[in-house]
């Protein structure tokens, strides 16, 4: 007898919630209880940031590659795509019996548009991580010729 089929869906989420409470209790134990047992002997050197044993140079607010920002934006677009594809995949067989090939072509068009989007990013060089110095390449070409 499979009892899980008797239980309504919200009740299953209650079980997940109880698990969340157990997880939080475990994590809270790990954060709070060792505090009672461990030694606390801070000093200035110990509390400075680790930089391979040297005095840290400058602060943590450094410049970083703008590529990370671009990748995050491209990710956002494609993640929404995944969000659309998963519900489509789940109802694919059921809808096929009602709508026929329309279900297939709809997603085909959707994926094609996104494929073109990916190709655009690719061609524009948004997926490159190493800067290609075309000026230097041209110079070396003219020098060698």
């Amino acid at each position, binding site marked *: *007898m*499979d*009892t*899980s089929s008797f*239980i309504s*869906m919200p009740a*299953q*989420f*209650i*079980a*997940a919630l*109880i*698990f969340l409470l*157990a*997880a*939080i209790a*475990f*994590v809270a134990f*790990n*954060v709070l209880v*060792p505090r009672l*047992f*461990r*030694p*606390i002997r*801070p000093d200035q050197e110990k*509390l*400075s*940031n*680790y*930089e391979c044993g040297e005095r*840290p140079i400058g*602060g*943590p607010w*450094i410049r*970083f590659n703008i590529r*990370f920002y671009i*990748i*995050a934006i491209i*990710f956002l677009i494609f*993640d929404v*795509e995944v969000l659309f*594809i*998963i519900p489509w*995949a*789940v109802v694919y*067989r059921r809808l*096929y019996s009602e709508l026929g*090939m329309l279900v*297939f072509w709809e*997603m*085909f068009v959707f*994926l094609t548009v*996104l*494929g073109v989007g*990916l190709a655009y990013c*690719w061609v524009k060089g948004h*997926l*490159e*991580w190493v800067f290609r110095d075309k000026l230097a390449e041209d110079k070396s070409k003219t020098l060698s010729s």
Partner: protein
Amino acid sequence: MNLGELALYSIVKIAILFPLVMLSVAYLTWLERKLLGRFQQRLGPHRVGPFGLLQPIADGVKLFFKEDIIPTNADRILFILAPVLSMACALMAIAVIPFGPSFQLFGYDLGRVQIADVNVGLLYIFGITSLSVYGVFLAGWSSGNKYSLLGALRSSAQIFSYELTLGLSVIIPLMAVGSLKMSGIVDSQADGFWNWWILSPKWLVIPGLLGFALYLISAFAETNRIPFDLPEAETELVAGYHLEYSSMKFAMFFMAEYVNMITAASIATTLFLGGWHSPLPLAPFTWFPGWFWFAAKVFVILFFFIWVRATFPRFRYDQLMHFGWKILLPLAMLNVFLAAVGLLLAG
């Protein structure tokens, strides 16, 4: 069954499963060190207890009593919140994994060895596991250290990039079963290994195999394992986002990583390798209980994780991004197309 009984049953199941999961996390670290030792022709841990079996417990006790250092320049609240978030998110995903068939305890039928069989099972897992990127990024940012920040940036960009492939690679079981429910996906793979979605029937075998390969590769990247362990990259970033962490906070990041490994292996087992079903519906195979087969399959995948760690060097960062965006993502989109065509041909 009323709500009180349900709550009681789930508490009993959690009380059984939670220690088991934590124990397997502890012994996964032992297994990894032991196997890595063997791969490199050393012994691995062997002093603490027989075969070094008490090593994980000794490590746990040591980390528990260690001094906890929070750098003066760190953002204290976020610094403490980050490992909490990582660990809690890693654990939450365990709740919907079906470990075994219905079981009985003291004459009570407790249902499946699964804490919550929610109808959006797979989406729930994706939702929860992608939250773990907050833990990583907050840790890197709040440490007040430039190496941590760089590690966190790399890590989040990597997790983003491979999450897309991860989401698209599981399309075959979803399309064929027509449900996101983990128990439904497992039930569809009963009676023999030819029903597992890795060897999907007829024309589906290509998207099945390809989907499994894509899932496994992106799972390596999601769990920051070699060859995708760029966020840690000892030689250039010292230790990446958990550089400033010590004591139990460090242990929590460590545990979260291993819990994530177990989750990834369990999901691969559930979606592609038939979950807790035995490979053949014949006598010697059916003697073993469902949880044995589940554990065996998860063990094989975890062994593969460790084997890969011992075999491959680390990617360079541009290689990692090229691989994720220019090879895996187009392949994953092609796989969706192949799965749709395959299902039409298979009827």
